[in-house]
């Protein structure tokens, strides 16, 4: 499908955003509102020997200065409670918050921050993933045995999490192989880099606080406030105004509690707006850097017999939500291939870097880049076409994958064939051009989710949902689902969302899950109203309820379209009696079983519900004199099950491809020897711009997937970010004759590889 063929659909939040009438968190003004500023550590690892706030408190206009002494003694964290709101005795990365200030102007707040005196005793910096796991390494958290943790978290040295998948006998498999290829790949960390830096506003009324915040996960943010400030959920209300992008970087609980605490102390509303630099250095959501070692054995006919692999992931100073990343990394090092013998492990290593966390498809772009580059190396060693090699070894319907899961009907090989065929339509390659091909996979994630739907007396609909909108398309797709269920038009519905006091729970814009789970909830909620409407219509049309059909804004008797009553009329009748209110949640799909594999450190990510598959073919052009690479065309083919909202799905693929290009060739965090970021700015951290975007041609292999989201849909938001860098890498290798083993593949790294 192309854009021209897709039905037009105006995003509910589109006109607001395009015309500038939309209001973001940073736009909010409340009576008496104060400005917040943080004192950051600005050193990667040190003991605090003196902290003097007296001068800061004397600055005119300063109404609150808070530190660890002023908040409850709570250590928090998703899988591992290693974090406190404010630094306690030791700072472990440069962006750690030492103190928070609220003042009548942001200049006064900054002056107070500048007046805070901190004296440090510097501690050795842990920043090398291999040295961090050596005997006698300096520990980032020496006292962490006292931390609360989920079962299975090792708390061993600097290893914050580990996972492995072991199946068959790898040693035997490698001995039986005709060719064995070993590779090492290193990926730098990168950033979500949303254009809107995060902002938080908090206002207390009595013992209740309302927090407006640019978060992708309002309920998680609320729960973080409740946990750290000791409040029940019904006294904390989190509302998300329009968001200017998240890309995973705004998943998690961040600074909502700091600002709520400031507002409570100052007895005034408080607003925090991050600078671009703060957005780069402080939040615990950076894409983790990674060292990957892979060894693969193949028979001379091209079949893979064994793979050994290891990934070291940079956790940074705190664990955020990254405990499960090791298992995801393992799955991506294995990849969607049939491999009878695997022994693949991953470790998440504490360092004095910014904490890593969910950025769109965590671990996948880097691990897939490494694995798919390695795959092309293996194919080259065999003298086999890399596409043929993939078609031979890829998982398919009925086959058993590397973790022991048997796949139902899937479309991976069709994705490969279609992507390659589409890329060939672009004409012959010039001598500085090549096409690289890579495949990817990504899970769909079942989770609880809820929604209400109501029709008021005039027949206008309202969807009240916990779903979040940071580009998820919920503003389009949820309305479409409710409208379809009720035989109405999507434009008949408005959405109230992103408000934890109003809507039922949803996980938020994370894990490609909004449509997958909240779609189910909205259909269930609308379904209850459909039943009510059928009952009302049956009564009025003197027909059996089972014969009532809802379509085109009316209820009619099946087979007799003339016997009908407008839904608006039924809504009016209902408004005098039993109101049209539906609520829904539904049962999430259950995880498939896996067999034959040992999964150490199992975080439930080895058996994938409704796995998504993809193949990207990237056509690039190289400047051989300078190593500059330009992506000129990407053919992206995705099996994401049924596509419910094509325009939204296309947007996801195009955005994911562009993000993937950045990760491939220009985006990478550069750390200095002092453990601090050297490029926390948009000039030196190079996102791709609109001028760099290539032609992107997207196709969907639509396979109805029974144990999945609504109508057989899988997720789509993260999958397009998975294989793009890998496809580009394989094209670069074709042109220069060897892989560039360091991500991002900057012009200078390409040039070095050519020399």
């Amino acid at each position, binding site marked *: 499908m192309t854009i021209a063929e897709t039905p037009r659909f105006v995003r509910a939040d589109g006109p607001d955003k395009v015309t500038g009438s939309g209001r973001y968190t940073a736009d909010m003004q409340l009576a008496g509102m104060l400005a917040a500023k943080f004192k950051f550590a600005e050193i990667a690892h040190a003991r605090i020997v003196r902290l003097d706030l007296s001068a800061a408190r004397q600055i005119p206009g300063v109404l609150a200065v808070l530190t660890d002494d002023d908040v409850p003694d709570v250590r928090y964290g998703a899988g591992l409670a290693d974090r406190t709101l404010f630094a306690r005795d030791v700072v472990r990365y440069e962006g750690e918050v030492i103190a928070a200030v609220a003042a009548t102007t942001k200049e006064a707040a900054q002056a107070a921050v500048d007046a805070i005196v901190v004296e440090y005793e510097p501690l050795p910096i842990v920043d090398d993933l291999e040295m961090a796991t050596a005997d006698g390494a300096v520990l980032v958290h020496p006292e962490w045995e006292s931390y609360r943790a989920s079962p299975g978290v090792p708390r061993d040295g600097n290893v914050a999490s580990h996972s492995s998948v072991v199946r068959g006998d790898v040693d035997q498999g490698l001995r039986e192989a005709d060719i064995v290829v070993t590779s090492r790949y290193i990926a730098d960390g990168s950033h979500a880099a949303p254009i809107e830096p995060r902002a938080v506003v908090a206002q207390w009324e009595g013992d209740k606080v309302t927090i407006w915040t640019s978060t992708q996960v309002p309920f998680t943010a609320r729960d973080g406030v409740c946990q750290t400030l000791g409040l029940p959920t019904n006294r904390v209300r989190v509302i998300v105004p329009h968001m200017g992008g998240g890309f995973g970087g705004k998943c998690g609980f961040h600074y909502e509690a700091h600002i709520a605490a400031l507002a409570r102390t100052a007895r005034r509303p408080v607003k925090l707006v991050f*600078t671009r*630099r703060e957005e780069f250095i402080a939040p615990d959501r950076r894409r983790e850097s990674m060292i990957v070692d892979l060894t693969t054995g193949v028979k001379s006919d091209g079949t893979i017999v064994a793979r050994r692999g290891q990934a070291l992931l940079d956790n940074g100073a705190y664990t955020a939500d990254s405990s499960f990343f090791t298992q995801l990394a393992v799955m991506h090092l294995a990849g969607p291939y049939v491999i009878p013998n695997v022994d693949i492990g991953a470790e998440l290593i504490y360092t004095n870097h910014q904490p890593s966390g969910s950025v769109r498809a965590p671990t996948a772009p880097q691990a897939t880049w490494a694995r798919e580059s390695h795959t092309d190396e293996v194919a080259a060693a065999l003298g086999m076409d890399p596409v043929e090699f993939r078609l031979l070894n890829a998982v398919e319907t009925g086959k058993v994958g590397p973790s022991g899961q048997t796949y139902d009907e899937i479309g991976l090989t069709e994705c490969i064939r279609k992507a390659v065929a589409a890329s060939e339509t672009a004409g012959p390659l010039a001598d*500085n051009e090549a096409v690289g091909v890579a495949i990817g996979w990504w899970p769909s994630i079942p989770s609880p989710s809820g929604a209400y739907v109501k029709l008021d007396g005039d027949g206008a609909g309202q969807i009240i949902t916990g779903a979040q909108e940071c580009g998820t398309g919920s503003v389009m797709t949820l309305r479409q689902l409710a409208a379809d269920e009720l035989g109405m038009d999507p434009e008949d519905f408005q959405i109230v969302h992103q408000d934890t006091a109003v809507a039922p729970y949803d996980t938020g814009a994370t894990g490609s899950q909004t449509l997958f789970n909240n779609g189910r909830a909205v259909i269930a909620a609308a379904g209850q109203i459909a039943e009510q409407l059928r009952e009302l219509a049956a009564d009025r049309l003197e027909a059996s309820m089972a014969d009532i059909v809802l379509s085109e804004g009316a209820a009619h008797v099946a087979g007799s379209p003339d016997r009908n009553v407008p839904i608006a009329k039924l809504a009016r009748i209902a408004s005098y009696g039993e109101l049209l209110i539906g609520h829904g949640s539904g049962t999430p799909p259950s995880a498939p079983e896996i067999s034959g594999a040992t999964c150490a450190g199992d975080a439930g990510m080895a058996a994938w519900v409704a796995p998504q598959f993809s193949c990207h073919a990237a056509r690039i*052009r*190289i*400047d051989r*004199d*300078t190593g*500059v690479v*330009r992506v*000129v065309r990407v053919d992206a083919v995705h099996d994401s099950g049924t596509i419910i909202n094509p325009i939204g799905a296309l947007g996801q693929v195009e955005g994911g491809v562009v993000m993937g290009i950045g990760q491939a*060739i*220009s985006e990478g965090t*550069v750390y200095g020897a002092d453990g601090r970021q*050297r*490029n926390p*700015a*948009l*000039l*030196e951290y*190079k996102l*791709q*711009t*609109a*001028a*760099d975007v290539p032609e992107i041609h997207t196709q969907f292999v639509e396979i109805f997937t029974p144990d999945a989201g609504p109508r057989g849909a899988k997720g789509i938001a993260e999958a397009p970010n998975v294989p793009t860098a890998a496809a580009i890498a394989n094209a670069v290798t074709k042109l220069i004759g060897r892989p560039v083993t360091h991500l991002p593949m*900057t*012009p*200078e790294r390409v*040039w070095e590889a050519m020399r």
Partner: protein
Amino acid sequence: MKELRIATSLDEALALVADGYQPVAGGTDLVVAARGGKSELPDHVVAIDRLTELSEIDSSDGGLQIGATVSHARLMRDESVIDGFTALADAAALVGSPATRNVGTIGGNVMNASPAMDTGSPLMVLDSEIVLRSVGGERRVPVSDFWTGPGQTVSQPDELCIAVAMPDLPSESGSAYVRLEYRRAMEIAVVGAGAVVSLNPEGDGRVVGVSLALTAVAPTIIAVGGIADALIGRAIDESALADVAALAGDQASPISDLRASDDYRRHTVGVMARRAVEAASRRAAGASIPVPVNRSVGIGAVT
């Protein structure tokens, strides 16, 4: 308290500058540096962007005089610039984004004195003079004497840059500016090169005049010495271009920073130099290479 005055006449602006006011036009350096925490906004600022006498492009006396507040957007589209001083249009078209180009000015660019400024090498090879005026009078400084280091010029605190001026090139001449860039908008030159080539009017393809300047490989924009000796009398062929690249690489003294290592800069500035000379010589021979060269040839071309 900060003070911003909006000048309504050049005399008023000069008087304020003499009193220590910092001039601002587009604000793309001053404001961005303040926002980025590099340097605070000055306490006293005079806006000169409304002075129409500084916003003219004048070719009436031969050569070209470009007012200090002429924007990059105008430079890249102005026919007299494109026809006679093409390298400057090449450079202006690469600056920042459309928004930056609409407000950023040539005068601000010159006075900011960044060694990575795109318009610097073109101004150098086009033999430009910087026109400085103060309450006490006016002087012209050849651009080759103007920049003394990053952010440093020979201008005095009471002087305002009011224009840049450049002579017409001989017939059968062409100029070009090429830069190494990692993306196609919002970019700063990793390295760059500007060139002017004049060919023998008799049409034998031999060089009769040439100049070459390099961007972002030294504390200031630098002119490549010895380029005339190396090329005059020769045709621009592969061997001549190899000599250009070698000469440029030899005279560069680049640093290693986030954008590139010194080795990579030294290599790529040679590549840019040969491309600039090649494009300039093709233009001198009458070929049409649309502005900017970076979007017309090579992998950066708009397809």
